[in-house]
């Protein structure tokens, strides 16, 4: 089993603008074939961190690290052509909003097949079979009809499943999901997260799940890392979340409204107090 190999090993990761403003301020983390959640508010640097693992940061950003290994590759010095061999093959990503992430001018079948065209040589018949198999695996009915459809003909939940099919078609070792459910309806969110969970489990992959909703991701991950203003401020197993000691984690955990909290104000972040804890 490859369970013990490290997929990501990062020490002292700093991402900044070229004028010297630091957005991610030196974080350390590593993960193997496990499910990890990266949680924080918008602007905390979680998406930048995830994009740096895909080599997809804008050119204007400066990435530095003391140590940066992805599946054993020293990717910090990689050129685009070297990244292209890794991306979509060994590491892949699911983005937030299928409306924007899918190409509106290409049919679904062509978009799902693209990673196969780029990374594997197979006959077009085998490719077609694989595409239909994958669409079926992500829970979409009638793949033969679906692959001829265009993104605007799909609902948000279906679009997100298509994106998942694209990400998983080459059986990557690491899947990065950047807020995969925040553009979706409440009822569909749990379905998509459960699907990601079961597919990742089945294939024994690593999952880095990014979200701002701590309670929702807690059910689908083993470990949780909490980011605040570019720093990893807390790191704990998912079971320990209800008893978190850090005030930021506590608030993120308890700020979700529900029926038992009626009539009492919801806990909010005491940002001044957090400044003193940094």
């Amino acid at each position, binding site marked *: 089993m490859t369970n013990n190999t490290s997929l990501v090993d990062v020490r002292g990761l700093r991402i900044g603008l070229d004028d010297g403003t630091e957005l991610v301020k030196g974080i350390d983390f590593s993960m193997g074939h496990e499910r990890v959640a990266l949680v924080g*508010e*918008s602007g905390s640097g979680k998406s930048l961190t995830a994009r740096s693992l895909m080599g997809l940061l804008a050119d204007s950003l400066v990435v530095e690290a003391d140590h940066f290994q992805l599946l054993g590759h020293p990717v910090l010095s990689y050129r685009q052509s070297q990244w292209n061999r890794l991306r979509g093959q060994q590491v892949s990503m699911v983005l937030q909003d299928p409306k924007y992430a899918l190409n509106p001018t290409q049919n679904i079948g062509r978009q799902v097949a693209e990673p196969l065209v780029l990374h594997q040589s197979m006959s077009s018949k085998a490719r077609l079979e694989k595409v239909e198999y994958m669409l079926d695996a992500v829970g979409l009915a009638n793949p033969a009809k679906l692959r001829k459809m265009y993104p605007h003909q799909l609902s948000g939940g279906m679009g997100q499943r298509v994106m998942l099919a694209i990400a998983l078609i080459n059986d990557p070792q690491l899947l990065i999901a950047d807020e995969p459910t925040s553009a979706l*309806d*409440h*009822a569909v969110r749990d379905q998509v997260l459960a699907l990601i969970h079961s597919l990742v489990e089945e294939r024994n992959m690593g999952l880095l799940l990014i979200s701002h909703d701590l309670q929702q991701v807690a059910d689908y991950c083993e470990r949780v890392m909490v980011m605040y203003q570019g720093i990893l401020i807390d790191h704990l197993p998912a079971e320990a979340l209800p008893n978190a000691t850090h005030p930021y984690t506590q608030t*993120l955990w308890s*700020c*979700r*409204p529900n029926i038992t909290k009626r009539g009492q*104000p919801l806990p909010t972040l005491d940002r001044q107090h957090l400044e003193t804890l940094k």
Partner: protein
Amino acid sequence: MNQLEVNNVSVSHAQGLQRNTVVHNVDLSVQAGECFGLVGPSGCGKSSLLWVLAGLNPYWEGDISLFGQPLESGKVFTGELRRRVQMVFQDPYASLHPKHRLRRTLAEPLKLLGLQDIDDRLSEGFKQVGLAENMIDRYPHQLSGGQRQRVAIIRALLLEPKLLLLDEPTSALDMSVQAEILNLLNDLKASRDLTMIMVSHDPDVIDYMCDHAVTMKAGRIDQEKYYR
């Protein structure tokens, strides 16, 4: 007194030369001072119904009475009614003019009404929602999503509405910012005697906020729930 009575109302959208009916024969009543919730999956017609109540969609049939006054289908809101119903939209990025400073956006309706002491009203509004007064001369892109949604709430409240319509006011926001906005809405409701109608796809938000709610499904009312 019932602020809003909706009887046997159907709502449609114009699609080319045809009409596509998305809400079918709905009955509702909302009392004064109540927070009323509309829940359901996307595409169930909850926002379409809200847009009719805001006077933004003239294609409806049935009987609606607002503050005891019957509405006429196909007619836009005029006069007092236009001011008494205000709406906060889902996406705070899209609901403020990107090229106007906040002061200009917020002062426009007040000037139109010929009100005095506009600046005092604006700074009072900023204080109420917990924003610093010096933000008033910024542009929308210089604010965070939560701050922008607060500004959208000020914009609605400056006109002193009796009925505040909220179309998914927190679904574009972070969980921690959502908590701040929901607390703010609860405080405003208590201090101003507002009637609110809130649309959301998150049943937890409705459970937390509302006194009375209906669940919609495929354009019809599925369940009705009272919390008091």
